[in-house]
């Protein structure tokens, strides 16, 4: 049973409404649950592999998720569960194609490449905070968290600064494609198609240019190939670059925003962090455990899977409820408590198995730079609205705005 904490007292608790177990995941998807889905997860966890009335199978226990993340009977290509093709990027593909594409990216997404972005991240954060002053009220989403990751990915890809603004727009629109969202409207779908086409054209030109003039950016690197990865070309290269943009954007935005939200809700920890900036190292892991950007991922069952006393039939849609696993009391002591230096902390914040987040080192670096800076520079920050308004998507969960009042911004 989850312990009662400050978090549980906020809206949406399952005890006030008795939801049949088979409808619980529908409640997770309901935007009304966005501010605090965790009690629903706790209810789901009492049956760690649970069939929902719409036929999907929700997996919410730590051990079960860990097992399925590594299971060869689990596919990321949802066509195996009768769903429309989710796109051909490697995140939606299975081995051996997945492994080939991933090796191509990993061959160039090296520690040196990530490290080379460090100073740039520092400068970006400084610039964003400079621009945020001297007002007393700021939206951490709009002013800090949102602009940062796209700019960083643009640097990674070698996008010229003057084109960055367009990337912000595309990333914004396309973030939704990571979700399998049945409630998406026609207009939203059209906007996505339009953004796809524009981005596609842009990247085509970019790739053609890099093919002529190789630089030390990632696009040039992917064109050249690495130690254990072959070069990428044509459509595969475009799709892969597009994935890096989409996968690394809103996830990182949410990490930064959820991070600040969580700290502002725990003033004692915020105070400790102020004096102990290196606390950020384990704290980032705890953040992606406690308030993960990616709450769940969809999969398809390639064969009947016997697990936790039940059988997921071949062809089923499977929901790996990562955020529920990361709060499983069977695996973590006091899972609903935010413990910034939790150790060990084996969480699913970045997934696991062969699809483990490629961008995790970059996301960690960004968060490890931006969070201490925010805490150092914002004078006496206070939440003005708790809970804040959330974006609608359930899988990629994070505030739409995070307004804080400050007494000033330190230089």
């Amino acid at each position, binding site marked *: 049973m989850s312990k009662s904490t400050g978090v549980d007292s906020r809206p949406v608790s399952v005890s006030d409404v008795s939801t049949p177990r088979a409808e619980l995941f529908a409640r997770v998807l309901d935007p009304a649950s966005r501010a605090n889905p965790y009690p629903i997860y706790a209810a789901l966890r009492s049956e760690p592999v649970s069939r929902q009335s719409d036929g999907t199978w929700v997996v919410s226990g730590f051990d079960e998720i860990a097992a399925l993340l*590594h299971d*060869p009977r689990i596919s990321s290509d949802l066509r195996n569960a009768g769903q429309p093709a989710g796109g051909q990027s490697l995140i939606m593909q299975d081995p051996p194609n997945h492994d080939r594409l991933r090796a191509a990216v990993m061959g160039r997404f090296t520690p040196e490449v990530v490290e080379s972005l460090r100073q740039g991240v520092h400068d970006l954060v400084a610039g964003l905070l400079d621009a945020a002053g001297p007002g007393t009220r700021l939206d951490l989403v709009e002013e800090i968290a949102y602009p940062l990751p796209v700019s960083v990915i643009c640097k990674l890809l070698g996008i010229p600064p003057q084109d960055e603004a367009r990337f912000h727009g595309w990333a914004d629109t396309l973030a939704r494609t990571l979700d399998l969202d049945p409630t998406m409207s026609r207009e939203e779908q059209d906007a996505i198609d339009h953004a796809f086409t524009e981005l596609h054209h842009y990247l085509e030109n970019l790739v053609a240019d890099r093919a002529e003039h190789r630089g030390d950016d990632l696009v040039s690197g992917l064109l050249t190939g690495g130690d254990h990865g072959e070069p990428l070309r044509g459509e595969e290269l475009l799709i892969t670059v597009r994935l890096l943009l989409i996968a690394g954007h809103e996830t990182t935005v949410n990490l930064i925003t959820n991070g600040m939200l969580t700290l502002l809700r725990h003033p004692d920890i915020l105070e400790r962090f102020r004096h102990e900036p290196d606390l950020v190292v384990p704290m980032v892991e705890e953040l992606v455990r406690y308030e993960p950007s990616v709450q769940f991922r969809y999969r398809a069952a390639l064969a009947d899977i016997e697990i936790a006393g039940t059988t997921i039939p071949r062809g089923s849609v499977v929901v790996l409820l990562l955020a529920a696993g990361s709060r499983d009391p069977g695996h973590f002591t006091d899972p609903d408590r935010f413990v910034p230096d939790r150790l060990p902390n084996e969480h699913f914040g970045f997934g696991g*198995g062969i699809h483990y987040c490629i961008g995790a080192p970059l996301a960690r670096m960004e968060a490890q730079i931006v969070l201490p800076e925010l805490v150092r520079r914002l004078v006496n920050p206070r939440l003005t609205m708790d809970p804040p308004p959330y974006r609608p998507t359930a899988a990629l969960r994070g505030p739409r705005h995070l307004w804080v009042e400050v007494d000033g911004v330190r230089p």
Partner: protein
Amino acid sequence: MSGHPGNRGEHVVGEHVVIVGASLTGLHAAEALRGGGFAGRVTLVGAEPHPPYDRPSLSKRVLAGRMSADSTGLPQRQDLDAHWRLGNAAVALDRDTKTLTLDDGTALGFDKLLIATGTRARRWPDTAEAALTGVLSIRTRDDALELQARLAARPRRVLVIGAGFVGSEVASVCRELDLDVTVVERSAAPLAGALGQWAGAAAGRLQRGHGVDLRTETSVLALEGDADGRLRRVRLSDGDVLDVDVAVVALGAVRNVEWLAGSGLAIDARGVQCDPFCRAVDTDGRPCDDILVAGDVACWPHPLYEGLLAVEHWDNAVRQARVAATTILHGAVRAHTALPTFWSNQFGVNIKVVGVPGRADQVAVLQGSVERAAFVAAYGRGGRIIGALAVNTPRALDAYAEMISSRMSFPPDLNAADAPDPIRVLDLAVPAAG
């Protein structure tokens, strides 16, 4: 230096746990005791002069000269507040008086005893040949140091006797150092005992592909030295005589149990027998509450496998140590049922194994491809999956561990996206149950 029992005033109350064998198992048991709140005295008795160190790197990085033997010392997670008696071997156990005798004559009383004396390298049977300079084995830091120095002196050719994991790793390092190496193996393939004939054949191709002179179904007839007692030549059963300066005897391990002779505990070549809670079993088959066994020296009944299981792997040592500590602290509440699992790195390849493939009667590649040196093979016995081998696919194995624990039928129907088409199930020579 080890301290003296007298200077431990603050802990005179509480029990005294003595751990014999100050290596991986001993260290982890001590950590688990302290981690579990044990406030009594802990004494670690170790025959080697060194504090606990990491054996697996000996046949890998240390041998290759990429890591010094001094760097192999293991970290400790927390203050053990332990009393160390290093360089002291236990020579006798008296269960009635709960007393150990050490090789310096000290009598050491205990309330609980953990036997963690592991194994030693099996010696070359001919004592005169074994005494030749250049004939070595590799189990300890000192062994590794000496062998590393000999390899660094660039011998004309290295002979490796036995193509199990340690022998194969030594051969791999030799090739990495660009040394000529001959591996002599009596059976038909390297690693065949642990992984079966089929995977052994693949390992053989890997070795030969890296320039190892691998001679299977061959044995060493004689090691020959010069007048100064230095190894010079080896005579092989295939008729060849090779000039060699170094011979590495890699014929497996022998349990360090001699010191327990006369103790009344159940002991045979597989080690000291214990129950699933790590309690040593006496010759009448009764578990002793105060004497525990863990690590390479132990053998115990595992719910998934027939007979007694003896496992010489790093992971088992750590887990079994923790179970033993739990039994010391809380009694028989947590059984040691972990699946055996281990890794090996050789010829640039990551090998991970779970379960007991060596007991299988069938094998099938279920994911990836052997040609591309990235695959998972599952092993079956009597129509159940009992083991799996992952080569360069370290993220795959957890799922197979799960299938083995739930006794899934073999071959399992996985319909994996990267399954070979068709999946071929091969029969293996049926080994005897342990």
